[in-house]
C-alpha cells in the first residue's frame, strides 16, 4: 500500500540522481490565439488551421456525407469529426485485398458516446443495444473512459445512428477531439454519498466544459443552422474558435480506489472524505497524460501533480480555469508537445497554479492527505451503505457481444436491462456494474447472469488487465492489442502459477501504439506496440497507478515476452516482502530504475541486472 502524502518520494530521492534546479520559461502574458493572429500564424500545427477554417466544427462534413461513391470523408473533416465523437477508420484486415477487387478501403466510423461518470439507465442501455445490433455489428464496447463506443458504422448510417443516440437522450459531442473529453468518476457504489458527489461533479464539469456550437445538431440531426450571433463570445464562450491545443481529460476519484487512474489525466479531483465518508473538498491534480511517440524522447508519459485543494463549491470554477490556462498556454505549434503535461513542464507547476488562482480569484488550499490502494475494479456483488446491491461483471476488453459458444454478453445484458430497475455503470477498466439492485431482485439478476454465461470475475491477472482496440480498426495501431493480450495472459498465468503467484494482483495493459489509450505506462506490466508482433515492455509502475513504469526491454517479439518475464516472476516469488507488489519489488530489487516522472521516463532504461538470480 503506497501512502501518498503528495510526492513524498523518499525512495526516489535515494535512487534517482539529484535533479539540477529547473529553469522554466516565462508564461505568455496574453492569449496567443486571436482569430486574426491564428489565421496569420503559418507555423501553427495543421489542426489549428483546420479548426480555424471549420466555422465552429462544421467544415465540409455535411457535403462529405453526400459523396456516395466513398465511405470516407476528407482528411480535414476526418480531424473535425473527432470533435463530434467519431473517428474515421478502415478495416485493416481487409486492406490487402481491396485494391485488387477494385474496392476502396473498407471505411467505417467509430462512434464514442459522452456519458459523464459512466452511468446510464436500463432504458438507455436498451436503446444503445438496439443501435449496436442495427448499425454496429452487434457489439458495444465499454471503453477505458467509462463510455461506450461503436465500431464499424458506415457513413450512410451515421445520421441514423446519431439520431438514435439523440433519442436515447445521449450524445457524442466532444467524445474525441481537442476538447474536454468524457469526464470519468469513481464508481464505487458501496460509498453511496461519495459516489454521488463524484458523479455529480463529473456531470457538472462535463456540462460546463461542453462545446456550445450547434454544428453537431445541425449536421447529424438536420438541425436548423443558428443564423446570426456569430460573435465568438456567444458561440463558444469558453473555447473560442480554436478550441484546445490538444485533448483534455478530467477524472474524479474517491479513495481508496484509484480505478479512474487519476495520475494519467490532465485534470483530476480526488475526493477528501470526512469520517462519515462525506466529501469535504477535492485535491486537484494536473498534468497527467499517457501519450508519447516512439523514438522521440522529448515526448513522454507523465503522472499528474497534486496542485492543491479546493472546496466543493469552487470545483467547477477550478476545472474551467485549468482548462482555459491550458487553452491559452498550451503549445499550438507542435501537437506532440501540446498536452497540459508539457505546458506544466515548460512553465512550472507554481506558475500554472498561480495563473489558475488568478483566474478563480482565490488561492487553492494545500493538498490534503489521501490513500489509494489500487486502480482495479471490485468484481462480484457488493452492498452499499444504503442496502442496495451492485454486481461488477468482468467484460474482457470491454467487448459486449455474444461470443460463439461463449458468454452472451450482449443478449444477457439486454435481458437484464429489460428487468433491471437501478442503473448501469461503466468502469474505467472497461467493466460493467449492474448497480442499485434491490435485495429482492438480486436473485433474478444473478440467474440471468448465469443463464447467459456472463463472467463475474476472472483470474488475478485478467482482473487487472486492459487492452486497447488496435487492429483491425484503429488507424494508429502498430501491433495487435485486444486480439493478442488474452493469449499472452494465458501464457503468463501458467508461468505465474508455476511460481505460486496465480492469485497475485498484477496490473497488465497493452496498447497497439504509444498513444496510451489503455494507460499502459502506469501498469506493472506495460506492453506498447512497436511493429507487427513486437512490443516495448515497460515494468516497475506502481500497482495503484501513481508511478510510471520504465522501458525494460525494447522491441520484444511477442513469442519472447513470457520468457522475458518468467525469471522476474521467479525472483519476485522468492524475494518479495509481504504484501509487496510486483512493480515495487522490481525497483527495490534493482531490476529496473524507478521513474520519478515524465522527464526521466526515458532515462536509465533497460534491465539493470540479469533476472532469475534472486
Amino acid at each position, binding site marked *: 500500500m503506497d501512502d501518498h502524502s503528495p510526492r513524498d518520494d523518499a525512495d526516489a530521492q535515494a535512487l534517482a540522481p539529484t535533479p539540477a534546479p529547473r529553469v522554466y520559461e516565462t508564461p505568455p502574458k496574453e492569449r496567443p490565439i486571436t482569430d486574426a493572429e491564428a489565421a496569420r500564424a503559418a507555423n501553427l500545427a495543421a489542426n489549428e488551421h483546420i479548426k480555424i477554417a471549420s466555422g465552429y466544427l462544421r467544415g465540409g462534413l455535411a457535403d462529405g456525407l453526400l459523396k456516395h461513391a466513398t465511405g470516407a470523408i476528407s482528411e480535414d473533416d476526418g480531424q473535425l469529426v473527432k470533435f463530434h465523437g467519431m473517428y474515421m477508420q478502415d478495416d485493416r484486415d481487409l486492406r490487402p485485398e481491396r485494391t485488387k477487387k477494385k474496392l476502396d478501403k473498407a471505411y467505417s466510423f467509430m462512434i464514442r458516446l459522452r456519458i459523464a461518470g459512466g452511468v446510464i439507465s436500463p432504458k438507455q442501455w436498451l436503446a444503445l443495444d438496439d443501435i449496436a445490433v*442495427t448499425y454496429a455489428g452487434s457489439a458495444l464496447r465499454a471503453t477505458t473512459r467509462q463510455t461506450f463506443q461503436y465500431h464499424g458504422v458506415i457513413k*450512410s448510417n451515421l445520421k441514423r445512428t446519431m439520431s438514435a443516440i439523440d433519442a436515447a437522450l445521449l450524445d457524442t459531442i466532444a467524445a474525441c477531439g481537442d476538447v474536454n473529453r468524457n469526464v470519468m468518476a469513481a464508481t464505487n457504489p458501496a460509498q453511496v454519498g461519495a459516489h454521488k458527489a463524484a458523479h455529480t461533479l463529473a456531470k457538472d464539469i462535463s456540462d460546463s466544459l461542453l462545446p456550445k456550437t450547434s454544428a453537431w445538431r445541425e449536421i447529424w440531426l438536420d438541425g436548423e443552422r443558428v443564423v446570426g450571433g456569430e460573435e465568438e463570445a456567444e458561440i463558444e464562450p469558453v473555447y473560442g474558435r480554436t478550441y484546445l491545443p490538444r485533448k483534455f481529460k478530467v477524472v474524479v476519484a474517491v479513495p481508496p480506489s484509484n480505478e479512474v487512474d487519476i495520475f494519467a489525466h490532465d485534470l483530476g479531483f480526488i475526493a477528501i472524505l470526512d469520517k462519515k465518508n462525506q466529501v469535504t473538498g477535492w485535491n486537484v491534480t494536473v498534468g497527467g497524460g499517457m501519450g508519447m511517440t516512439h523514438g522521440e524522447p522529448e515526448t513522454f508519459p507523465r503522472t499528474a501533480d497534486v496542485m492543491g485543494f479546493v472546496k466543493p463549491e469552487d470545483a467547477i470554477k477550478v476545472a474551467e480555469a485549468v482548462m482555459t490556462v491550458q487553452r491559452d498556454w498550451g503549445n499550438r505549434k507542435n501537437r506532440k508537445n501540446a498536452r497540459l503535461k508539457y505546458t506544466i513542464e515548460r512553465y512550472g507547476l507554481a506558475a500554472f497554479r498561480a495563473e489558475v488562482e488568478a483566474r478563480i480569484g482565490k488561492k487553492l488550499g494545500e493538498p490534503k492527505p489521501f490513500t489509494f490502494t489500487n486502480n482495479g475494479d471490485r468484481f462480484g456483488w457488493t452492498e452499499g451503505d444504503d442496502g442496495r446491491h451492485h454486481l461488477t461483471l468482468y467484460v474482457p476488453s470491454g467487448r459486449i457481444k455474444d461470443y460463439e459458444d461463449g458468454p452472451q454478453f450482449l443478449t444477457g445484458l439486454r435481458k437484464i436491462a429489460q428487468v433491471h430497475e437501478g442503473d448501469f455503470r461503466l468502469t474505467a477498466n472497461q467493466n460493467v456494474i449492474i448497480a442499485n439492485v434491490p435485495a429482492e431482485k438480486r436473485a433474478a439478476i444473478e440467474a440471468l447472469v448465469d443463464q447467459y454465461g456472463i463472467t463475474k470475475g476472472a483470474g488475478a491477472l485478467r482482473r487487472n488487465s486492459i487492452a486497447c482496440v488496435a487492429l483491425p480498426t484503429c488507424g494508429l495501431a502498430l501491433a495487435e492489442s485486444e486480439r493478442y493480450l488474452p493469449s499472452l495472459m494465458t501464457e503468463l498465468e501458467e508461468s505465474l502459477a508455476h511460481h505460486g503467484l496465480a492469485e497475485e494482483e498484477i496490473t497488465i495493459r497493452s496498447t497497439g501504439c504509444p498513444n496510451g489509450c489503455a494507460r499502459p505506462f502506469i501498469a506493472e506490466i506495460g506492453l506498447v506496440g512497436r511493429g507487427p508482433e513486437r512490443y516495448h515492455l515497460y515494468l516497475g509502475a506502481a500497482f495503484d497507478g501513481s508511478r510510471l513504469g520504465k522501458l525494460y526491454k525494447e522491441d520484444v517479439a511477442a513469442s519472447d515476452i513470457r520468457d522475458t518475464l518468467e525469471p522476474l516472476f521467479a525472483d519476485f516469488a522468492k524475494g518479495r516482502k509481504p504484501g509487496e507488489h510486483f512493480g515495487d519489488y522490481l525497483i527495490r530489487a534493482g531490476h529496473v530504475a524507478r521513474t520519478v516522472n515524465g522527464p526521466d521516463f526515458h532515462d536509465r532504461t533497460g534491465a539493470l541486472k540479469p533476472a532469475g538470480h534472486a
Partner: protein
Amino acid sequence: MARQNLLPRTAPFGDGERASLDAVLGSATPVQRAWLAGFLAGLDAAGGQPAAAPSAPPKAAEPLTIVYASESGNSEALAGNVAKLARKQGFKPKVVDFSDLDVATLPKAGKLIAIAATWGEGEPPARAVRAYGELMGEVAPRIDGVDFAVLALGDTSYVEFCAIGKALDARLEALGGKRAAERADLDLDFEKPAADWIKNTLKALAPAETPDNVVAVDFARAAPGEDDEAEPSREPLVVEVVEHVNLNSSRSDKETIHLALAFEDGAPAYEPGDSLEIFPENDPQLVDEILNAAGLSGDESLRKALLAERDITTLSAATIERFVKATGHADAQKLIDSGEAKAWIEGRHLIDLLATFPATLTAEHLNTITRPLPPRAYSIASSRKEVGDEVHLAIVAVRYETHGRARSGVASVHVADRIRDGAKLRVRLKPNRHFRLPQDPATDIIMVGPGTGVAPFRAFVQERRAIEAPGRSWLFFGDRHFLHDFLYQLEWQEALEDKSLTKIDVAFSRDQPEKIYVQNRITHNAQELVSWLEGGAYFYVCGDAKNMAKDVRAAVVRAYEIAKSLSPADAEAQVAALERSHRYQQDVY
C-alpha cells in the same frame, strides 16, 4: 462490282465461258441472281423449252411484314434472316420491331410473319410490352384477309415455354387472320429449325403464280458486303482469361467475377451495349452424378460430350416425356398422367429426374433427352477505346439450394470455380443495337444498373471518357452491402474525379433496417431526374427483368408524377413517349 473468278474452276464450263459468266454474275444484284436461278430451274422443268414468263421482268414484289418481339436479339436476328431470304424470293419485306409497331397498320399487312420471344415467366420482351398489350386488348383491329405465321422462341427451362408466341398465334387467328403456316415453338438451339421454318413458311406465303422451283441459294455468303450490314461471325472464338478476380469482398456472401478476356487476333468490333456469349462447361461433379444415375459411369466419350455439349441441368415437361419414351418408366409416366409434372419440375433439374426414377439409360438416350448446351450471354463491361483487344465481363456466381440439392448456374459457376488467369474460353459476340449510347455525345445519360447490371455502364463510361463526351452522366448503382458489394467502386471514384461520371447514387439494400433499392433513389431524386430527362437525357436500365426493371419503370413514372404534378396516366404517357423515341432503353435478363 465486277468480281473475278466467281465460278470455281471445277465448274463444267470452258475458261472463256467461265469468264463471261463471271462478268455477268459478278455484277448482278441478288434479285437478278435469284431470278436467274429460278429461270434456269424452270427451264429444266419445262423440258428444255424456254418459258415465256420468266424472261419477262419480275413482277412487282409481294409486300411482307415481319414483326418481332425481341429481348436478347435472337428474334431480331431471325427477322433479319427472314427478310433477307424473302427479298431473294421476290418479296418486299419490311421488318418492324414490336416497340415501333402501330397495331392499326396490321390489317393492311397482307402477309405477316411474327417472331416472338417469351421472357421470364411467360412475359413479352420489355420493348414489346406496349404493342403486345394493344394487340391482345380491345383496341386491336380485325385483320381479315391477312395471311400470317408465327415463330415462337423460348427456353424449355421455363415453365411457360413460348407462351407469348402461342398467345400471338391464337390472337392473330381470332382477329380474323388466316394461318398460312403452323407455328414452331423453338428452344435455345433454334438456329437449324428456325432456318427450316423460315424456308417453308416463305414458300407457304408465296403467291400462287410464283414458280415454286426457285432455288434458294445463299448468295450473301459467296458475296459478302452485298448486304446492308456485315454480320459478326457466328463461329465461337477462343479467348484467354487475363484477369479473373472476385469483385466482392471476402466478407460478402456474393461472388461477382470480373473477367478480362484477350482476343489473340483482335477483339471483334463490339460496341458498348453489346453482349458476349460464353460457351460454358458443365460441373464435372454433376456430370459424374448423371452418369452414375444413368448407370453409364466409365463412358469417357459420353462424359466428354456431357461436359461440353449437352444441357444436363434443364428439366422441362418435354424432357420427362422424352425420358418416358426412352425408358418406358411407369412411375414417370404416372407423373405426366397425373398432370402434376409442371409443379414437380419447379426447382428440379435433370439429376432429380434420374434420381427419382432410376433407369438404366444408353448414351443415345441421354442425347435424346437433353438439348444442346446453350451459350450464356453477358453484357460487355468495357469499351474497346479503353481496353483495346480485350472484353471485360462481370459475372455473378449463381448458387442456391432447392429440394435438398446445391444448384449452380452453369456458366457463372464454371467461370467462378473452374476458370482462372490464363485459362481459355470459347465466346461469341452478340450485338444489341437496342442498347446504345446516344449518337450525340453531348446528350446526357442516366444509367440504372444494380448488381452486374452495372456492367454495360462501365462500358458506357469508358467510351464517353475516351471520346471526351461533353454530355453529363448519372449512375444509379445498388447491391447488398456498401462495404463488400460495391462493384468497381474505385473506378467510379476515378470517373467522378475525371468527370466522365457526373453523379452517382447508390442503394445498398442490407445496410440498414429497411431495404433501399435503386428505384427508391430514383423517386427520391424525382425533380432532378425529370429535369435531366426533359433536357433530352437518355435513360438506361440493365439487370433483373423480373422485378427491378419494372420497379424502376414505375419509379420513373412516379418521378414524373412528383416532379410535374402529373396524374399517374399522364406520367405513364411521358415514360411511354420516352420508350417510343428510344430514349428509355433496357438490357434486362
